[in-house]
């Protein structure tokens, strides 16, 4: 039996990897994957907490989050494709038309 704190530690590590990925990677697709990792880290935390508290709420939440993540994928990829059509290159460093 693995104790809950292990799951929470794993979730915190996953979340941190996601944050670092968003900050240091330059490809929008990889940034997007890192964001998905952050969402799934939150999911893992919800399930672990739900198990510790003995309630189903945590697991129910995960379904909603998964649905939202799927919707986010649809919108995100559409935006990336729309930009790629105009530009033929994909790096957030190119997104610099507007600067203060």
């Amino acid at each position, binding site marked *: 039996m693995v104790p809950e704190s292990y799951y929470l530690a794993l979730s915190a590590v996953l979340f941190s990897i996601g944050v670092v990925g968003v900050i240091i990677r330059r490809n*929008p697709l990889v940034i997007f994957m890192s964001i998905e990792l*952050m*969402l799934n880290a939150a999911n893992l*935390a919800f399930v672990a*907490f739900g198990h510790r508290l003995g309630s189903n709420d945590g697991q129910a939440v995960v379904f909603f989050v998964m649905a939202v993540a799927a919707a986010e994928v649809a*919108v*995100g990829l559409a935006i990336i494709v729309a*930009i790629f059509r105009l530009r033929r290159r994909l790096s*957030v460093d190119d997104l610099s038309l*507007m600067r203060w």
Partner: protein
Amino acid sequence: MSPVVPPPAVALGVLLPVLVVLAAAAVVLVLDVLPPRDSKAHLGGVALAGIIGALLAIVMRWGTDARAFRDMVLLDTYALYFDLVICYAAALIVMFSMDYLGRTGSESGEYYSLLLFSTAGMMLMASAGDLIVVFLALELMSLSLYVLAGFFKQRLTSGEASMKYFLLGAFASSFLLYGIALIYGATGSTNLDRIAAAAATRNAEPMVLIGLAMMLVGFGFKISSVPFHMWAPDVYEGAPTSVTAFIATGSKAAAFAAMIRVLVVALRGAQPDWSALLWALAALTMTVGNVVALAQSNLKRLLAYSSIAHVGYMLMGLVAGGGPGPGAVLFYLLAYTFTTVGAFGAIALCARAGEEAVEVSDYAGLARRHPVLAATLALFFLSLIGIPPLAGFVAKFYLFGAAVRAGYIWLTVIAVLNSAVAAYYYLRVIVYMYMREPDGEPVAVAPSLAGGLALTLAVAGIVILGLMPAPFADLAQVAVAPLLR
């Protein structure tokens, strides 16, 4: 063996205003594929009718205090007040869009339905009684706005705005979600009232505080407070101007609605902690917003930084706390929404040499050629400065008054100094309009009936709010009452 959960009673009446908006969105989607295929001008009218229907539903339901779906959705005066602000903004923006999109030839059904979907998300945020509903409503609002920001598919700036808004928005939402997970873990519930009850017995656990901080990151992004504001100027500049107006008003009002409810109801036990955090955020936000706005030559970016500064003022009311603080914030949001929608709307009406007129220098000599529009725009800017007798003055008066009464003298001093700085960049635009001559082609303005009506409504809003603030201020106080029980 887990206990059998009885299905919740279905009480659609509580969702009535949201459902009206969603139904209108669905009708717009269906009408989009029916003839006439070549003209989409009527779809704006349908969207507007839906929003007016929602406004009627809100007025009908005023004074109720209903909750449904196991306390997940609340319909109290607080939610109804925000519904009113959001629907007012949405109605004006639909009218401006009919004019703006008609001129650029990009009117379409999906634009109006996405606008309505995000309106529904905003209204749900104000009604949320559960952190999960806050998250879902926020995503409904945001996902629609990400697409709307990139609506001009042929323009690189629009795509860039959309991508930046999406990546940073999704990043911030995952912080919000992780914060919710931590608070759920610490208190055993995602329901706002039950969190408050559970947190009251245990004194400020570290997990609650970390969760609170992470949720503030998520909300701070949506209201664009410093240091989570970096997206705002780029998105405001690149997005279609009508969408910018909605991001600046509707999404901010909705994020404030959810944030105030979460902080004041669920996390009232941690008030000293979040109050101190927000003090710093407020001072930083108004100062950075105003100082950077001084250097802007693009009017949309200037208004973006000005809107950041206004968020700083509003956070001040939240710091003040108690009844008068949040009440003043609600009133400020109303005044801010009236003024900002009008200002962006007026900009959307102007064009120069076939392009949108977005540089401050484009507006040189506007007063000579289009005295009415110049006067209107000047009124909006004067209200943003806070000149009596316009809405902005009264709103600042209530807000600063609440902060002083709560003993936050230094924060108020910072805010007053900031207001003085802000006058410079607003007045600069007015100077251009009235005292400079255009070099090259002047700005062309041809407002349609819808655009003119929307401008008239916005001006009427700020003048009425400025001359007779008392009933509206009472309304705002009545609206926050359900939070303070």
